[in-house]
């Protein structure tokens, strides 16, 4: 992301400076220092930088509970009324109603059997019924 720096040598390579090799090096260092002092980096953003940032923000929102709920709401409003999903929902509720009814009827029949057996036995053996019921104490 940082701009590439290029430095041009103040003297062409190969030409010996007047003050010898050391004075040439010192001059280069001074120029380098001077250039670095005045240099202001001005990075330019990548072409799709803003778009990428917003994409990441949207992705983070989608991962949260509110994102899930929003997507579910959208699905319910848009997709559920479609014939395929609506038919599946009706079939599922019909099956659920049938299953719950069968379960409850099974319990009710069992209760009825127990009660009927007890009533029948009480009708032919009332003494046992009377003896098994709690009585008032003296």
């Amino acid at each position, binding site marked *: 992301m940082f701009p590439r720096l290029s430095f041009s040598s103040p003297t062409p390579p190969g030409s010996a400076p007047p003050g010898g090799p050391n004075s040439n090096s010192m001059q280069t260092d001074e120029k380098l220092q001077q250039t670095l002092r005045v240099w202001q980096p001005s990075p330019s953003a990548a072409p799709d930088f803003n778009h990428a940032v917003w994409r990441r923000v949207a992705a983070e929102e989608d991962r949260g509970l509110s994102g899930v709920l929003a997507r579910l709401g959208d699905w319910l409003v848009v997709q559920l009324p479609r014939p395929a999903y609506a038919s599946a929902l009706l079939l599922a509720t019909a099956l659920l109603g049938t299953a719950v009814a069968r379960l409850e009827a099974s319990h009710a029949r069992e209760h009825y059997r127990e009660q009927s057996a007890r*009533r029948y036995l009480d009708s032919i*053996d009332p003494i046992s019924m009377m003896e098994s019921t709690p009585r008032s104490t003296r």
Partner: protein
Amino acid sequence: MKKLFIVLGLAVAVGLVSYFCCYRHAMASVVAVTPDGTDAELAWLKHEFALTPAQYEKILALHRAYQPVCAGHCARYMAARQRLETLLKEQQGWSPDEGAALDEIARVRSECHQAMLRYAYTVAACMSPEEGRRYLQMIDTRLLSGEPADMMANPH
């Protein structure tokens, strides 16, 4: 949004209708009052022990003949119990009258159970052998423990 509510309303309606239809169909065999006015427990007996109409008619006649006998035992037992309760309230110590009342209670209970067993054997004889055995098992359990639990653990 309107379509969504329509679909949800339809789903609830379909669920309720299927529930009530299935429940009603499943409970069709449960009869609270018989068409001929007999007690519901006899309708249960017919269904529970898979009685044929002829078997049911025989058992119904036996049951009707047994009811007055049973009612007589019941009345004698109640009177004996009442007498014993009165004696226990009035007397502070042991008396021969209390012993006589206890004997009467035991005698009536024994006669009642003997009559019930005779009735039960006659009823079982009207059923198929397998159902008759199951019926007598229910009676035996009642006599010994007071509850028809064993019979209910072995559904028809």
